[in-house]
C-alpha cells in the first residue's frame, strides 16, 4: 500500500461514517449545524492521530491480553486533554460540544484504528492513517451538519439566509437518520462506480 493510499482511503473509500458505519453516535448527536460537525470532526482527528502515534510506538511493549484496556487508557487521556483545553481556550465551542467530547473515548473509529492499524504498522503510517480517517470523519460530519443546518434552520455555518424556521425535523434526531441515509446511498453509488 503506498503512503498516499493510506492517507486517502479514509476520506472516501473507507470513510468511517459512510462506509464503515463507525462512530455513528457522535455523528448523529453533534451534527445539528456545520460548525458543530466540523469541530467535533477535528477534535476526533486530533485524538485519532495522537492515539495512533502512541499505540504504534508502544505496540510491542504491551502484552496481547491487556492491549484493549491499555489502548483505552491512552485514548481517554488524549480525550481529556482535548476537553480541558477546549474548556479553557474555546469556551463558546465547549458549551455546544461539551457533552459529546467525553464520548470520543468510546468512539469505535478510534479504538478500531488503534486495533486494526496502529497496532500492526509503524509510526509514520499510523499518523497517515489517523489523519486520513480523521479528516474523512470530519468531512462526513461537516457535510451532514451542513445539510441539516440548511434544511432545518435555513443557515450555513451560522449565516442565516432566510427568515423564520426551516423544517425542524432536520435539526431533531430523526432528521439526522434521514440525511445520513441519503448520504450513505450517494457514497455507495460513488464507491461502486
Amino acid at each position: 500500500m503506498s503512503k498516499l493510499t493510506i492517507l486517502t482511503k479514509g476520506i472516501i473509500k473507507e470513510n468511517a461514517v459512510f462506509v464503515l458505519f463507525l462512530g455513528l453516535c457522535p455523528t448523529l448527536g453533534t451534527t445539528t449545524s456545520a460548525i458543530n460537525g466540523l469541530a467535533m470532526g477535528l477534535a476526533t482527528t486530533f485524538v485519532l492521530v495522537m492515539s495512533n502515534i502512541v499505540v504504534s510506538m508502544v505496540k510491542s511493549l504491551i502484552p496481547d491480553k491487556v492491549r484493549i484496556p491499555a489502548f483505552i487508557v491512552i485514548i481517554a487521556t488524549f480525550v481529556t486533554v482535548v476537553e480541558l483545553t477546549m474548556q479553557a481556550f474555546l469556551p463558546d465551542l465547549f458549551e455546544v460540544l461539551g457533552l459529546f467530547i467525553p464520548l470520543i473515548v468510546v468512539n469505535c473509529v478510534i479504538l478500531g484504528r488503534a486495533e486494526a492499524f496502529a497496532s500492526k504498522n509503524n509510526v509514520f503510517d499510523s499518523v497517515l492513517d489517523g489523519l486520513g480517517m480523521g479528516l474523512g470523519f470530519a468531512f462526513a460530519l461537516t457535510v451532514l451538519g451542513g445539510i441539516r443546518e440548511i434544511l432545518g434552520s435555513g443557515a450555513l455555518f451560522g449565516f442565516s439566509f432566510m427568515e423564520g424556521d426551516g423544517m425542524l425535523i432536520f435539526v431533531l434526531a430523526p432528521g439526522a437518520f434521514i440525511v445520513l441515509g441519503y448520504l450513505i446511498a450517494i457514497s455507495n453509488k460513488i464507491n461502486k462506480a
Partner: protein
Amino acid sequence: MASKTESTFRNMLLALFVVSFISATTLGYVYEFTKEPIAIAKLKKKIAAIKKVVPEFTNDPNADMYKIASDIKGDTLEFYPAYKDSELVGTAIKTFSDLGFTKRIYLMVGFLADGTIHNISVLEHAETPGLGDKMDKKKSKWSEQFNGKNPANYKLIVSKDGGDVDAITAATISSRAYTDAVDRAYKAFIENKK
C-alpha cells in the same frame, strides 16, 4: 518487528501500571495548566451575563455576591448587586428551574430597585434545539417580552395556565420552566428587599 512482550502476569501488571501512571501524570499537568483559564472563562461569562441584565454599574458584583436560600431545600440563589457610585441600580440574580424538558436550567435575571425586570439572560440549558432553545436570545426574541415588566402586576405564569406570559410555540414545557425560574428570582428578590 521486535518480539512481542509475552502475556505473563508480571508483564501485564507492569504494562498497565506504566500506561496508567504516565496517563495520570500527563492529566495532572494539563489540569494544572488549564485550571486558571477555565476559571477565567467561566467568570467572564458570568460577568458578561450580569452586564447584560442590569443597568450600567461601577462596582464588582462578583465580589459583592451573597447567597439566599431558595424554596427548594439545599439550593441557593446568587444575588449580584450592581452599584453605580454607591447607589443600588439593580440586582442580578442567578436562578434556576427544574421544570425543564431535560436538566435544570439556569438564568441570570436582572431586577431594577423597584422589582421591574430589566433583562434576562440564559446561562445554561439543555432544551430541544429548534424548539425549547428559543428561550436563548441568540435564537429568538421570545424572552424580550419580560423586559420592562413588573411582576407585581404581571402574572409570571404562561397564558395556557392563566398567566400573562406567551409560551414558545410547541415548547410550553420549556416556557413554563423559564417562567418558573424568573418567578423564583422575583419572590426571593421581594422577600430579601431591605
